[in-house]
């Protein structure tokens, strides 16, 4: 009995994890299936778009600005070891657009949005507001989840695009003011080696990350335990799950875009 206890504990953990994964997948499928079936709630959608898109701009912008700057310094230092300092502009641009823009933007949105969605929906669940929605003939999935998931999927690519530009601008500032690049050359090099497919791959990633963030927030909120503790746990799980899934999805999508 006592010898088997650790094995049983591991088994429980694995089974619990698999069950959550299954529930998550079902939740995702259900959310997507409701995307195309009326009734729609445009007001909720616009509200979510403001909350997720517009109000995330400062955070994403700041993150991109400093990352772009640091990236320029790093690549300059690294490039100097084999006299390739001139690649700074293009590597900053490609690195930002393909990888750092979407990933860091996605993670910042996860921290900001997944947590707030989970806390809001979790509180609604705990205070019986979700039950109240049902009795008022309103499907919680359509009213709460669909607008948020749709808004995040559409807004995050735009955030990524803005973040990319700001990140490249951060690299430009550092390149021109600290590393002595000629402004015109810096811009020319940035543009010359950047391809549309680089930008597109980053935007697709952004859409996937937005979907993940909102879905995790809604899923953990809807499945929140009872009381303040339940909401706290839901919020934490939403952020952790969203962040890990973003990084995992990023790897998979990079493989896909890389081999394509």
């Amino acid at each position, binding site marked *: 009995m006592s010898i088997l206890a650790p094995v049983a504990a591991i088994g429980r953990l694995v089974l619990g994890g698999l069950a959550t994964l299954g529930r998550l997948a079902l939740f995702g499928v259900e959310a997507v299936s409701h995307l195309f079936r009326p009734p729609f709630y445009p007001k909720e959608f616009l509200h979510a778009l403001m909350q997720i898109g517009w109000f995330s701009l400062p955070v994403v912008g700041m993150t991109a600005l400093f990352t772009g700057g640091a990236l320029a310094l790093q690549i300059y230092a690294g490039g100097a070891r084999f006299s390739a300092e001139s690649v700074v502009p293009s590597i900053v641009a490609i690195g930002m657009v393909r990888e750092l823009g979407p990933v860091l933007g996605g993670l910042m949105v996860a921290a900001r949005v997944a947590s707030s969605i989970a806390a809001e929906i979790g509180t609604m669940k705990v205070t019986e507001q979700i039950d109240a929605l049902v009795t*008022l003939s309103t499907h919680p999935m359509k009213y709460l989840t669909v607008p948020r998931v749709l808004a995040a999927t559409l807004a995050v690519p735009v955030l990524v695009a803005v973040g990319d530009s700001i990140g490249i601008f951060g690299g430009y500032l550092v390149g021109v003011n600290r590393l002595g690049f000629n402004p015109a050359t810096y811009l020319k090099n940035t543009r010359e080696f950047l391809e549309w497919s680089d930008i597109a791959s980053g935007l697709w990633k952004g859409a996937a990350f937005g979907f993940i963030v909102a879905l995790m927030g809604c899923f953990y909120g809807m499945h929140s335990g009872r009381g303040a503790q339940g909401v706290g746990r839901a919020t934490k799980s939403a952020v952790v799950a969203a962040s890990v899934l973003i990084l995992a999805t990023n790897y998979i999508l990079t493989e896909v875009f890389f081999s394509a």
Partner: protein
Amino acid sequence: MITLTDVHKAFGSNRVLRGVNLTIPSGESMVIIGGSGTGKSVLLKCILGLVHADTGSITLDGEDVETASRDTFLARFGMLFQGGALFDSLPVWQNVAFRLLRGSLKRPKDEARAIAIEKLRRVGLKPETADLFPAELSGGMQKRVGLARAIAAEPEIIFFDEPTTGLDPIMAGVINQLIREIVTEMGATAMTITHDMSSVRAIADRVAMLHDGVIQWTGPVTEMDATADPYVQQFIHGRAEGPIEAVR
């Protein structure tokens, strides 16, 4: 008519409902009494399908609530939750008019607002309350907004989970009268949970007492005082001694 047959519901090892049998005739006001934590709120939620019973059947006019079309089924109901359950992102009037602002009962905004203000007046709230947010209201005011929301779309069947808890005696009287009016004037079926014996006498046509997961006693309110059932007697007289244990 709502019929519950041998309804069981457990949360883990906590067996809350253990074979509830109850019939609520249409157009009547049924009041459920019973100690705190005996599962009265769970019973209402089972009927609405918010909580799924483990075994047993619940039917509305002969149709099983689990298999009925959810939309048409829920459209017939109004529910006041024990905690109010107001949407705190919406102002009071949009809470009250929630059903009238979307879905099949949708009507113009001014009209919905006017109805909301009228319903607020009926639960004793001034029109100024309409533009406040739920967080700005006292507990008793929130309860009354919840009540106004439950009756806003004039449903056929209304559930009230402790409508007068947290209200002053005068306001409680107003609410009791309102529930009575809804049943006699609009012909609605009402199911009310309350601990307040004066409310029971004011609202009820019939009374059912839930204890130990079953309906211990049920009958017309007129027979409640005369019944020999020791559980009912202990409950209505609020005695500490009796078959119902004080520690539950």
